[in-house]
């Protein structure tokens, strides 16, 4: 990548990127303006009025306590982190092993197995909630953070397996075979050869698992029945009611809920940018 294109080409690239970024950022900006404006509603977005600036919505969202004086926001933030983190860890662990097998072994049930990972996603998720509720109830995992971790990890699994299998397929099998000849076990090859090479893909799948768990609302709201166990999106939707909504508070909550995910991406994008695979595959 040493070639540097002409000045005009670079300028064009910057212009396109700047314009695109501005367009893409507009709704984000709209949320931000609504979150810090005293006047509720959408029209503040077009004519932001500095005299209406307030941090009240943000402060209220963060400072919520329950009747027993417990800091609800803190607990719910922790719940969200545990649920999303747990689902990611579990999901990536299960997905990498399964994807490795699908990529490297041919065995009876191979095709059926891969197919079934895709196929199960075709059934609309909204219709799975009631059966899942019954199942969680039977397993005694209703109203528990663990239940959500397990559910989110498995719902993200098909994507992760597919993604990783696609990536593992681009890593030459010669590497495995060379290591096998050197006397390494399959587990060791998986752990020491394949996983490090697949870090960009693992980063993508981890990000995906985390995002889908972090943002999920309807299952969390249906399964959890203690406010101190709620995740943040559930709390966020307190502000949307049958007869209207508190858009300032909702926007403030949206902003706060989105921040950790943005930070996570910022951290993980270095992994993506690392380009580890580029050097290793010859």
């Amino acid at each position, binding site marked *: 990548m040493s070639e540097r294109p002409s000045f005009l080409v670079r300028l064009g690239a910057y212009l396109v*990127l700047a314009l695109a970024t501005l367009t893409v950022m507009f709704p984000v900006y709209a949320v931000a303006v609504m979150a810090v404006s005293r006047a509720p509603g959408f029209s503040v977005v077009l004519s932001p009025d500095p005299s209406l600036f307030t941090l009240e919505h943000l402060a209220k969202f963060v400072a919520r306590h329950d*009747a027993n004086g417990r800091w609800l926001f803190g607990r719910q933030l922790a719940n969200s982190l545990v649920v999303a983190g747990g689902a990611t860890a579990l999901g990536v662990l299960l997905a990498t092993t399964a994807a490795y097998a699908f990529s490297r072994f041919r065995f009876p049930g191979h095709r059926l197995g891969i197919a079934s990972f895709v196929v199960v996603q075709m059934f609309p998720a*909204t219709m799975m909630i009631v059966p899942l509720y019954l199942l969680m109830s039977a397993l005694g995992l209703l109203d528990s953070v663990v239940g959500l971790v397990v559910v989110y990890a498995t719902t993200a699994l098909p994507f992760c397996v597919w993604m990783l299998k696609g990536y593992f397929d681009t890593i030459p099998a010669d590497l495995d075979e060379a290591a096998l000849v050197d006397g390494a076990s399959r587990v060791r090859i998986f752990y020491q050869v394949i996983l490090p090479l697949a870090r960009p893909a693992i980063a993508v799948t981890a990000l995906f698992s985390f995002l889908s768990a972090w943002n999920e609302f309807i299952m969390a709201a249906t399964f959890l029945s203690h406010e101190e166990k709620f995740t943040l999106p559930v709390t966020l939707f*307190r502000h949307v009611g049958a007869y209207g909504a508190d858009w300032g508070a909702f926007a403030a909550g949206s902003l706060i809920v989105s921040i950790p995910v943005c930070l996570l991406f910022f951290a993980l994008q270095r992994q993506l940018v690392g380009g580890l695979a*580029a050097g290793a595959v010859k």
Partner: protein
Amino acid sequence: MSPWLSVVCVLAVAAPATEGEVVLWHAYRAGEAEALELVIDDFRARHPEVKVRVLQVPYGAYPQKLRTAIPQGAGPDLFIAPNDHLRDFIERELVTTARGVPADRFDPRLMSALTLKNESWGYPLAYKTLVLFYRRDMVDAPPRDTDELLATARKLTGDGRYGFVYQASLPYYHAPWLFGFGGKLFEADRLLPFESPAAIASGDFLRRLTFEEKVTPVDISGALATELFNRGRAAMVMNGPWFVSEIAADVPWAVAPLPVVTATGMPARPFVSLDVLYRTARADGSAGAAVLTDALTSDAASLIRARVGRQPVANVAVVHDPVVESDQLLAIQARQLASTEPLPSQPVMQLAWDPYESALRQIQRGARSPEAAFREATARVLVLARPLPKAAPVRFYVLGALLLVVAGLAYALRQAKRAQVLADVRRSGPAYAFIAPAAIGMALLVGVPFVMGVGLGFFEYEGSQVRFVGLGNFASILGTNDYSPFEPMSFYFTMAVTVLWTVSNIALHVGIGFGFALLLQPTWLLGRGVFRVLLILPWAIPNYITALIFKGLFNTQLGAINALLMKVGLPAINWFDHFASAFAANLATNVWLGFPFMMVTILGALQAIPSDLYEAARVDGAGPWRRFTSITLPLVGPALVPSVVLGTIWTFNMFNVVFCVSEGQPEGATDILVTEAYRWAFMRNGRYGYAAAYSLVIFAILLLYSALTKRLLASRVAEAI
């Protein structure tokens, strides 16, 4: 990973026991929630022996949570919900009869709305009805009849201001006119055709307000009505008591009963809806629940609700409380109550709201005469109220299923013999070991619910009764019955829209994602990381938030997009009045949401391409385009295949965007299959069986799609390699 796991374990152990607690659920927010908290605090102080746990459930998840949790014994003892689902609650056996509190505590008109089959099914805590709010700086005296209303509104309309604002497309807000003109919805429990002369007269009135005289704007949501009122751009607003908490402090406002309909001399009659305290079976025999029920419905609690929540309350004794009497809003609500209609709780009404709303929208924009619009709505309700499939002969189906299983087994055995599967299985131990954890998790948590969902498609619910209907649901979906397959009501129309929706989305996701990925790839780009993070943001924000924001941006009156159009001299567009523009609004939202996923996938794949490939190609004299088509595309392609296949599946089933942005408008034309399935499951009297069958059809279509792509890709990939 271990710190995560340890935290998980701690939280699992720390789950408190729920024995002996009295659990109360509600979906209140703002002032109403505050008032309830005060009542509960007071109760806790007086009754320390009763442990109360209150849960505020987000409104969006509330009905579904009640329906799922209560039959499983995981529901509350008491819950607060409106009265329009009363019969549904009774039929599903979610609620028990109201006992223990003297009925004469409450206004008999309200109590009678909760009486069915000679039993009372809950206690009214508060009621809500529409009244007329007006700005005192714009309106001198509130209009007494509809002629005055029109005259006043006409005077105050213009310059971006409107004389009279309300959510004119919602049946709930049209009801005052319908009943004021002498119309009726039900006779006994039978839903009447919508196109009665009185109803047509009410439609003509709506048409005058919105289309002919334009004193009432279209495409108004609750938030917009508030905003227009607060900014002095709406002189009068028809709204319920909840509106008070949204009026800005500096607005001089007052409230009046709704005007008399001049043509008939009868007062406009809005619906009255109740906040009801329901008891579930759990509350039977629980002393704590009885004490709490009494306390929540007491005159003292009622007074707190009236004073703090400014809720019009149902207790007779509180009506003449000086504080309540001096509160203008509550006094007017009490006066309006004299001319109201109870909110219908007949199950068929759940099917009527949507078609009725479509009719109102068409009348508003002058697209159809009231008569034609209402006639069509009547026809639509008949289509939606299609009879449940008949019970099917179970024996016949069991036999068929057995035959299928036997045939499948025989086929599998033959294959196994030929391919010496047993030997292969024995050899593949390590592979199975790698897959086992994921497979077990999937089988349990995805496989089991999936099988249950599939099975449900062969049954149908009627209240709490379930019966086997075989393929009846499928026949009803796929048969066009008595409406045209080219109408939005038909499965085939919805399916065509879904395909169009999926194809256009994926094309744009991949195209835009690829473009950005290539732009973000070169190392000479300064601020690469910053651009990447900014462009990924749409993915990071939960899609329901995005959908709600875009809905606001596309709003006719206050949306940023129309404001931009007008700034460059183009006319404003009613985005959700036409199929093409409503579809475009959905598409814009979902493209905004969806391209970062493809972009990240492609970026990941680009990273994996060895850079010396490009260098070698450059040495060989390949130009940028040649390098792109010969190196980038073939190497990114395989990594992109799973993303495109999965992206297709997700887009096909992208519920949130369609449901929140266009809401299926106009007339359900932009609905996709999955939103239809959802409407059947949760908005049309909970026809789970029908919805499950719908989902199974969706599943079959996607299965067919993936089989086809696999076939196509297999040949393509083989060529490339």
